[in-house]
């Protein structure tokens, strides 16, 4: 009897401790497999922790191609990390940047100011930081004898949103003209009601304070715009112009540069409707799918794009197809 009880208690403790370990282990394996897609042999020089501004996180890593005198070395591919504007680091871009540099392009991965107790960056203020980073990278490369002529901007999640903002708002005013955007799992709109739906995991909604009420919406818009938005402004529609101004889709025009996107069909962090909003805006401005924009859909993947290795390879091939097409 006593033995039975002890066995049961041990079983119970073990079961609770290890519940969900199979799913977590599989997730780890999937993440490693998807990162491995970008792994490639690269012997170029990486210059780390270069500064581009005064803020503590205004740093970047520069990945130089092995042959800095080759034609590809005049093009920069900038990577902006994700992390919900609260976490992430330039190291997150390492697999991508190594791959870009191995293909002969100059690559850089930047850090930017994150939301913290002592900092409250907005989408637009980070856009300013990206602009500063591009200038600094151009100058640094000139110092190294590399003459950059143009660039592509890429990013993941929050970084993808920033990449789109930079590409759609600053393609021509940037220190290096932006030729195209590569964005993975990026939010394209900050429409609070779109983010309040069941498409988004309840924990994300809870963290963001999105409960479907005007108060929640006001908090959400204020968080990213830096403006003091009230529930009354949401109710009256006055807040709409504020969230639209920080939404990449709203800045798409007939002159917008090409966009290569990748989204996971099971994404529960960024609403899948984000992709539709982007594609609708691109089509409305006269852009043609397959010519001016492409979307790679990863059917079995969530936000991290980790469960469709074949589609990731297609994305990688498309990235270099875009490089061939749009870099001068």
């Amino acid at each position, binding site marked *: 009897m006593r033995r039975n009880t002890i066995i049961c208690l041990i079983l119970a403790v073990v079961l609770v401790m290890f519940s969900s370990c199979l799913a977590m282990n599989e*997730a780890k394996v999937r993440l490693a497999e998807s990162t491995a897609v970008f792994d490639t042999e690269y012997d170029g020089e990486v210059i780390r922790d270069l500064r581009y501004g005064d803020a503590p996180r205004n740093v970047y890593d520069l990945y130089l191609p092995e042959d800095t005198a080759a034609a590809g070395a005049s093009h920069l591919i900038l990577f902006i990390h994700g992390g919900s504007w609260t976490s992430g680091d330039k190291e997150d871009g390492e697999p991508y940047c190594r791959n870009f540099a191995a293909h002969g392009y100059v690559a850089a991965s930047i850090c930017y100011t994150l939301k913290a107790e002592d900092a409250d960056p907005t989408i637009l203020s980070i856009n300013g930081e990206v602009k500063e980073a591009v200038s600094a990278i151009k100058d640094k490369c000139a110092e190294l004898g590399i003459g950059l002529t143009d660039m592509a901007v890429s990013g993941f999640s929050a970084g993808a949103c920033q990449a789109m903002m930079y590409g759609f708002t600053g393609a021509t005013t940037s220190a290096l003209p932006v030729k195209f955007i590569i964005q993975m799992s990026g939010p394209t709109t900050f429409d609070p009601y779109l983010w309040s739906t069941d498409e988004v995991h309840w924990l994300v909604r809870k963290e963001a304070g999105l409960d479907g009420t005007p108060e929640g919406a006001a908090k959400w818009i204020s968080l990213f715009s830096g403006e003091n938005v009230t529930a009354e402004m949401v109710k009256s529609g006055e807040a709409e112009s504020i969230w639209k101004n920080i939404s990449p889709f709203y800045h798409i025009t007939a002159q917008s540069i090409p966009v290569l996107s990748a989204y996971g069909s099971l994404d529960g962090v960024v609403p899948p409707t984000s992709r539709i909003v982007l594609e609708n805006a691109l089509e409305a401005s006269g852009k043609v799918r397959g010519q001016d924009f492409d979307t790679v859909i990863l059917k079995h993947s969530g936000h991290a794009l980790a469960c469709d290795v074949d589609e990731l390879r297609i994305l990688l091939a498309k990235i270099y197809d875009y490089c061939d097409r749009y870099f001068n």
Partner: protein
Amino acid sequence: MKKLALIMMLMLSVTAAVCAADGDPVRDVGKFQLQNTFIGFGVGSRHQGDTRTANLLLGLDITGTTLAVSGGVALGASIFVYNGMRAMVGEVTNADIWISAGVLGAGVVTLIVSKILGISMPLKY
């Protein structure tokens, strides 16, 4: 929550009433059955003097409760983690959910067997 509290109160009052009744052999068997059902852990059979059944029911109730509780907790944790992983990573195994549900189910079946024995054995003793 209110419903659960009411059911618990009802069960306790029935059990208390049964425990208070004494003397009539038929009512005594009913009392032992109710004690085995609602108090559990072989309390009724032990009062009846059937130590063998009491020990069996004690083992079954401890095993069943442990399996059901741990299975339930693990099931909740598995569903929570699975949903999060699916949103973040994508399609991952849901084997944890099935294993936890199996443990929970085994616990429930064990408790049901215990209750059936708790009702039938006092009649045979």
